[in-house]
């Protein structure tokens, strides 16, 4: 049967090829036939569309979100399907899932392309909080003030105030409902640490401690990769946030200075890049072919960690969700083997983490804003909501969900959540979403051999172009 399908496709192809070549040979009939072929395809499509509209006048609510490659089993798919089943409007509204598959860095471009277009614009979009200010300034997102005014959970303190701030734009209005937040740290493999003669309960105090541990691992357990951090352009925001900013904010400096100017040259940037350079020049990092492609985050989380080929991994606290029974790479023993430590500041004396998160937003061009908001409320209802956050390994944004027993008993949840106190957020600056791509270029340049100085000079040039000379500062 399958084979027949193949042969049918092939014959059709061949026939079409012949038809094409014969189309102008005189009769003209072949050409019309071929043309009919393509028009029927188009006609069928429009028929399908009109049928949809005709059947009980059901409207379609379209949701755009990121598919990281896990497909239908990804917690977000499950969450959307379950919320829809429980939704009281499901008889009037059809749900259309419109995931965007692509590398991390392609998602935001594709979303912006869609949001700008009234015809292809979805009704709900999953927005990373760093992209939100930029899309708000562009006028792509609906001001939700009027909606949240009647949303009880929003006003009675159920949502954490600190997280509401993440979806509030510079104009003081709300543009999204935050559904998760997260923290970052260092994952390490206790078994490998043991073999390397390192403590199994590990909390590095300085950056140097990490490099020393890498050196020990490289010497004593040469077959594993000592250290992995996202380092490429293709891994997008993960490179900016999980690597560069985790380091930079540990120097005491930030992306912007106190006056809101972008710091484009400083010793802190050099130090940060030097750390990354040390990792790669000393051979502590993975090969560039592993770490510089769009699959790198998945490779580390779903292959190298579970297969115990990687000792230390700087990444999100949520990645353990990959290893649970229903995760992308089930790993029954992960709780005994993996440890999670906080990222130390450069020279000791404290820890640092970056915190991000996602919101549910309604595009300005959506024609079904009321239905969309109603569905968002449905999505945010525990227990389906809580379940989805557990499956993502993230931190909830509602205090009622935070009291859920199952949620609280998740491994590493306490450690991850504890970091939230004093966590840094990315700048609420509409230009961050562009600057971040230059951060990624800078990190990749250093990882692949540029000197920190050269990479920083390029970064300074790029950022100056984006934000203007009045908005930068050199330290």
């Amino acid at each position, binding site marked *: 049967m399958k084979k027949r399908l193949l042969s049918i496709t092939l014959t059709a192809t061949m026939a079409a090829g012949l038809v094409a070549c014969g189309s102008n040979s005189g009769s003209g009939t072949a050409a019309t036939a071929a043309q009919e072929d393509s028009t029927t395809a188009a006609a069928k499509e429009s028929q399908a569309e009109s049928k949809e509209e005709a059947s009980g006048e059901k409207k379609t609510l379209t949701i755009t979100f990121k598919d990281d490659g896990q497909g239908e089993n990804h917690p977000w798919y499950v969450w959307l399907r379950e919320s829809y089943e429980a939704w009281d409007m499901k008889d009037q509204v059809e749900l259309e899932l419109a995931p965007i598959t692509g590398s991390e*860095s*392609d998602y935001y*471009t594709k979303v*912006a*392309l869609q949001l*700008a277009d009234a015809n292809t614009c979805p009704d709900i979009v999953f927005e990373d909080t760093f*992209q939100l200010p*930029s*899309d708000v*300034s*562009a*006028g*792509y997102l609906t001001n939700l003030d009027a909606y949240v005014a009647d949303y009880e959970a929003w006003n009675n303190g159920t949502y954490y105030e600190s997280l509401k701030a993440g979806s509030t734009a510079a104009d003081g209005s709300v543009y999204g409902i935050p559904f998760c937040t997260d923290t970052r740290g260092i994952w390490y493999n206790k078994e490998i640490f043991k073999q390397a003669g390192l403590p199994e309960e590990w909390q590095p105090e300085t950056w140097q401690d990490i490099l020393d541990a890498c050196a020990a691992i490289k010497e004593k357990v040469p077959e594993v990769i000592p250290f992995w951090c996202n380092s*490429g*352009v*293709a891994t997008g925001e993960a490179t900016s946030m999980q690597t560069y900013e985790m380091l930079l904010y540990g120097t005491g400096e930030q992306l912007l200075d106190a006056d809101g100017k972008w710091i484009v040259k400083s010793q802190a940037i050099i130090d940060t890049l030097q750390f990354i350079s040390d990792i790669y020049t000393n051979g502590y990092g993975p*090969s*560039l*072919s592993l770490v*510089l*492609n*769009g699959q790198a985050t998945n490779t580390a989380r779903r292959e190298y960690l579970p297969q115990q080929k990687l000792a230390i991994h700087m990444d999100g606290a949520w990645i353990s969700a990959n290893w649970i029974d229903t995760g992308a790479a089930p790993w029954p023993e992960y709780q005994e083997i993996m440890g999670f430590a906080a990222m130390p500041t450069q020279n000791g004396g404290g820890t640092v983490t970056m915190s991000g998160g996602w919101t549910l937003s309604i595009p300005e061009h959506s024609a079904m804003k009321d239905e969309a908001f109603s569905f968002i409320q449905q999505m945010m209802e525990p227990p389906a909501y809580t379940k989805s956050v557990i499956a993502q390994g993230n931190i909830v944004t509602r205090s009622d969900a935070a009291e859920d027993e199952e949620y609280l008993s998740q491994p590493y949840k306490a450690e991850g959540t504890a970091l939230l106190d004093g966590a840094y957020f990315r700048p609420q600056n*509409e*230009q961050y*979403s*562009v600057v971040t*791509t*230059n951060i990624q*270029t800078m990190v*990749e*340049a250093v*990882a*692949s*051999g*540029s000197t920190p100085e050269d990479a920083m000079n*390029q970064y300074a*040039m*790029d950022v100056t*172009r*984006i934000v203007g000379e009045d908005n930068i500062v050199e330290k």
Partner: protein
Amino acid sequence: MTKNQGYGFREEMRKSLLLIPAVLVLLFFFIIPIVLTIYYSFTNLALSGSNAKNLQFIGLENYKRMLTDPSTVISIENTLIFLAGSLAGQTILGFLIAYLMKQKAKGFRSVAGPCFLAGWVMPEIVVALCFMAFFKENGTLNVLTGFFGAKQVSWLYEHPMLSVVIANVWHGTAFSMLNFQSALDNVSGDMEEAARVDGANRFQVLLRIIIPSIKDTIATNVMLNTLSTLGVYGLIYAMTGGGPANKTTTLPIYMYNQGLKGMQLGFGTAIGMMILFVGTICSLIYARLLRTKEEG
């Protein structure tokens, strides 16, 4: 030219009717976008952020920034290296194969020919996949070099430009080969014969008789390859994404990274103008070549 201008005009319009559909399509989907490119390159057009809402004319700002940015220079350099490498590879290999294949046994030609053509008929995206696997650590190339005792090389990362050039040469050589084959078939055997009788060796015949008599084909072929190579985008994007860092960032990739990924559409179109500019220069040279040929 015609005496009766009115009649001539009407007559010419009537004769031009069949041109209209093509002209309309070119106007709407080719010329207007180019005009828009010129226009947008003077604006701050953006895909997101406040500039997306408020389009402003910013004069030569994009061009000024582009010309002072070292990335532009790097992208132009990369484009030229990619171009030179691809051209040299495709032309020399294409000619060599066509020359050697001449007057070989039919059976041999029908077996060897398709081997060279395989890369040409293959879609760009599949070429990219083949070469990604070919250059991987445990890929075909390393297995082969390992056989001779060489150490494993991560080609796509250590020699990224070489890798994409090789992939492009593989993809494009057959086009040159076909061009040269048909040109070589037209080289008169008599002159070769005469030269041989005069005691010239094969190499001298090649240099003094064959190459001069197909030099027009060589020129045309180089120009055609230049133009198609300038537009190569998907192959590089799929193989390296322009990286590592900016080592394979050619102008089209630079444009995508700045314009779409970086959401600076206006700046991206200024880079687009740069690509059009390079294309224009090539095309003027090309038109010049053809004209002199027609006149000669």
